[in-house]
């Protein structure tokens, strides 16, 4: 029998502006250009008012519908922004290439999640797929077989609505959920887990991706179109060695990644976390040989999964060149100058 109570207290944060909490969030995070579009607020909003689409986070009819409950503020990772950077603490650093799955590089994200599913650590994980125009779509993965779908793997450089889908996954998941996300999404989840116990119980495995920046789909689409990318033939997008490479069935278009600066969202400009420091493990292609992925295992949970993978021999291991990761991490750290003064004091010296 679960202990239940008839009377309980909930701590609520203090308002910066004497208005509804949503307006506080809108003024201080979204309009000030801090919002990273991680959608944690959209996930938690009890009236499902906050919408996260291919534009800025918004709550169109907040004046009528907002119940002023403060949760959006409580979960927002940029409300009291605590910028993190570098590689962070880790237990193990490996480079791997999955024998089972095919992906952008080593398909290690897929491999880790598949192994976690097999271990029974989680019974559901959220992956991002794409349609013909490379719009992102969130898929609920419940079995390893589903992961063989090629549309689920590969990098999509536009925002995905992963977090709002957690709400649906929560209702039906029994063992736990595994999530893959960018560093800002990982931060959002961690803050969510700190505030609400059910998320602590349900979200078991969080995978962070190495990330420099992410784009709004419509902007990226228009940009690439202008560059001559034919989306019907596009099979892979990648950023390596300062170049954006769009591989199509018959040709390849590449250009310096700096050209994309014009469409980088504001939220990414203030982000200095390259390796998703708060995640259970982070994965990226940087720092290992082509065809391999670098995996930074940070927590015991992820370590268990890695042990499982090693036991079953699903992965060929390779060499990690940590300097390359550090170099890129430091490169991203240069954005510190964009962070407003008041948050810089949080930063560790």
């Amino acid at each position: 029998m679960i202990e239940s109570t008839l009377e309980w207290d909930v701590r609520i944060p203090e308002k910066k502006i004497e208005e509804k909490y949503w307006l506080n969030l809108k003024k201080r995070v979204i309009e000030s250009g801090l919002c990273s579009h991680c959608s944690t607020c959209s996930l938690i909003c009890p009236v499902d008012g906050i919408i996260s689409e291919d534009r800025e986070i918004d709550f169109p009819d907040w004046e009528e519908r907002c119940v002023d409950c403060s949760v959006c503020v409580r979960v927002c990772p940029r409300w009291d922004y605590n910028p993190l950077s570098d590689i962070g603490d880790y237990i193990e650093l490996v480079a791997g290439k999955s024998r089972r799955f095919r992906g952008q590089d080593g398909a290690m994200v897929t491999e880790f999640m598949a192994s976690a599913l097999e271990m029974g650590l989680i019974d559901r994980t959220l992956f991002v797929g794409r349609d013909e125009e490379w719009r992102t779509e969130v898929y609920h993965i419940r079995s390893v077989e589903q992961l063989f779908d090629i549309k689920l793997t590969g990098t999509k450089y536009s925002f995905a609505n992963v977090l709002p889908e957690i709400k649906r996954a929560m209702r039906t998941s029994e063992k736990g959920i595994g999530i893959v996300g960018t560093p800002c999404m990982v931060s959002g989840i961690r803050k969510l887990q700190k505030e609400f116990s059910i998320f602590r119980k349900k979200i078991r495995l969080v995978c962070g991706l190495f990330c420099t920046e992410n784009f709004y789909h419509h902007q990226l689409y228009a940009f690439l179109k202008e560059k001559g990318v034919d989306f019907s033939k596009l099979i892979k997008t990648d950023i390596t060695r300062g170049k954006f490479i769009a591989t199509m069935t018959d040709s390849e278009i590449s250009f310096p990644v700096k050209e994309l600066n014009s469409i980088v969202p504001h939220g990414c400009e203030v982000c200095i976390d390259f390796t998703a420091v708060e995640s259970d493990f982070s994965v990226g292609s940087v720092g290992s040989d082509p065809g391999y992925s670098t995996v930074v295992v940070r927590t015991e949970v992820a370590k268990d999964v890695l042990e499982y993978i090693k036991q079953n021999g699903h992965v060929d291991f390779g060499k990690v060149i940590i300097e390359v990761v550090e170099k890129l991490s430091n490169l991203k750290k240069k954005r510190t100058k964009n962070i407003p003064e008041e948050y810089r004091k949080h930063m560790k010296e």
Partner: protein
Amino acid sequence: MIKIKVRKPDMVENIKLHLDALLTGVKEAVKPGTITIEYPRERRWLPDSFRGYILFTPENCISCFQCSFVCPANAILMKKSENNRYYPSIDYAKCIFCHFCVDSCPGSALRQTKIHDVVYIDLDEMFCPTENMINPPEIVREDEYTVEYLMDLDIILKRVKERDDLIPEVKPVEIIKEYSSCYEPDSCLACGICVSSCPNEAISITSLDGEKRLKIDADRCTGCGICVKECPVQILKLVKG
């Protein structure tokens, strides 16, 4: 296994079969086994469990919406009444008389009657608002006899000169006390949706300094389960008590 064998009847058999058929006809013409009932003047006796027109007692209703949720035909609409409670109203144009709603009602607020012959002028008329469900509909009763089918080797029509009571006494459901309670207060959003959804004002929210206090009044709670359904993080549960 039974084997059925049929031969084509020959001449003699054929004549016998013809005569059999004709004699059966004559027998029925002389002494018919009529089972027809002259309906408006007579009425068939119906068992008390007959699924007919549905009556509603607002005092027993706890506004739990269960009748509306379970209706397979989407015929029940919950409407807000003057006392801010939601009461069911039935669209008889859609109702299929499965009485899932009656069987779902935890407080016996809905109950069945034997009324099955109500006439409506048009489709709009068939929508039966709550106030019309409290009292039985006006039906003109021409019947003087009640006919009951008795089965005693043959169908016997027992005609009694009395009017069958169309609104039977229904034994009310034994109500079990349930109330809502929170089993994971750590995850509460303090959004107050449970407070606004409660039809009985059993949940209250009070703002303290930097804190909000939520309280469920177990005595006022009727156990309707709406807050349980509405809670965005699903941390409420009905507890027997």
